[in-house]
């Protein structure tokens, strides 16, 4: 019976001809769009995560504390919600760091009269404090400390990057949804044509008492086959495109986003795309309605 149903499904697919091909292409385009945006979103997400790991909030102090007072201050700040780790940077250490940063121009710092740099606390936010909202609250808490002169190191641009990632995801899902609806309608049209082409078979099947499932299942299967083919083509297209584009884009991504390499879609997302294609095709097959026989 399974062999019969699958055989009928492929016979139906051949009958649908060009419309079936259009449906497969549309499913490929819709899932290709979703896959492309998922790819972008995934790599942007990785960049955001990396930058969040490197995120530091610097609390510039009004006065340089004594060694004992600095240790006490570090312990106090470690107790502030949203703080992961704290490092005290004395004025002398700050000046040394500045000279290291200036490199061959370090002699410029020697011309300064005294050390103008303040002592500071370098705060690494915890996971909770690294979120846009968490970081804002952390900066507010640290600014409220009487020892703090100024708090620097906002998360605005990381926040912007996170927003861009969300926008890319939403755009991908939006494009994918529009193309997905078009794909469902095309599969429905293909299946309706199949229903018309197989109306005599359907009439005979109903006449001899075939179960409704036997009549409908080949239609559902041929829709699913269209969906699976579309998804497979989309994944192959994405893989080929990725293999060409990734080596060219990686240097740019390293400079702009700090990503050492761009990753392809994870297996779970590839499986999800294949499943989405199958569901799109099945929906098209289910929605088709032919002339109802007695």
């Amino acid at each position, binding site marked *: *019976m399974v062999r019969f149903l699958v055989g009928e499904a492929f016979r139906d697919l051949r009958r649908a001809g060009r419309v079936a091909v259009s449906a497969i292409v549309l499913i490929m385009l819709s899932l290709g769009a979703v896959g492309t945006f998922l790819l972008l979103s995934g790599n942007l997400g990785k960049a955001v995560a990396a930058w969040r790991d490197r995120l530091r909030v610097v609390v510039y102090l009004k006065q340089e504390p004594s060694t004992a007072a600095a240790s006490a201050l570090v312990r106090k700040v470690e107790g502030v919600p949203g703080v992961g780790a704290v490092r005290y940077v004395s004025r002398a250490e700050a000046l040394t760091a500045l000279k290291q940063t200036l490199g061959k121009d370090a002699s410029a710092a020697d011309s300064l009269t005294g050390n103008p740099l303040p002592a500071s606390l370098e705060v690494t936010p915890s996971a909770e404090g690294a979120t846009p909202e968490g970081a804002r609250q952390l900066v507010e808490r640290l600014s409220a400390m009487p020892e703090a002169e100024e708090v620097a190191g906002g998360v605005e641009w990381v926040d912007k990057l996170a927003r861009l990632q969300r926008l890319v995801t939403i755009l991908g899902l939006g494009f994918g949804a529009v193309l997905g609806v078009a794909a469902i309608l095309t599969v429905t049209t293909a299946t309706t044509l199949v229903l018309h082409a197989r109306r*005599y*078979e359907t009439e*005979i*099947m*109903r006449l*001899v*008492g075939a179960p*409704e499932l*036997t009549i409908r299942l080949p239609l559902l299967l041929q829709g699913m086959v269209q969906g699976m083919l579309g998804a497979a083509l989309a994944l192959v297209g994405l893989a080929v495109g990725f293999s060409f584009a990734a080596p060219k884009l990686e240097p740019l991504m390293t400079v702009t986003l700090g990503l050492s390499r761009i990753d392809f879609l994870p297996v779970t997302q590839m499986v999800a795309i294949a499943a989405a294609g199958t569901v799109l095709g099945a929906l098209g097959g289910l929605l088709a309605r032919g002339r109802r026989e007695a």
Partner: protein
Amino acid sequence: MIALDRVSKVFSVGPVKVPALTDVSFRVVKGEFVVLHGRSGAGKTTLLKLLYRAEVPSEGEVEVLGEPLAKLNRRGVASLRQNIGVVFQDSKLLPGRTVYENIAFVLRVLGTARGEITARTFDALRAVGLHSRARAYPAQLSQGEGQRAALARAIVRRPSLLIADEPTGNLDDEMGGEILQVIRDIHSGGTTVVFATHQARLARGLRRRVLVLEGGRLVKDEG
């Protein structure tokens, strides 16, 4: 086997009501051969469609194979039809399949085991004298051969009831005679037959019980 009790059927064409059958009652016992005779438009096809639940009556009750059809759900209708063979004036063979495939198709959609399909298909083809044409496509058959193939398809499930709706209507006398002989053979095997025809000479010549329909009413029950 079959019981119709005060059955009427009215078709609605927009606001217009068209009566196809009016107050028809009769019974057919198991193993009987009944001829349904009437002119075109007398209601023969509508009556036959009521028997395999392709139509439902507007009034009255229809019982077939011991089942009151009004109570049947979709699955019940499918189950009923598995015990009924139907042939029409045109053979309704599937053009893209050979004679063998047309007949085996019925068994395949009903989930019959593969080994059994071949044996039963050739049994049915032998019963109608068409086993040598198993590989032919419908377009390669004469009209008589086409009807014999349709008969083979109707009996391949070994149904208890055979409904024949003008199966000789498109055939000349010789071919019609061949089809009638095949149907007689099927009947002699114990199958109940309801045979509809508009040809008065044929109805009388069969020497069977004849139900005569006129304008949707059963006006004679002879035999």
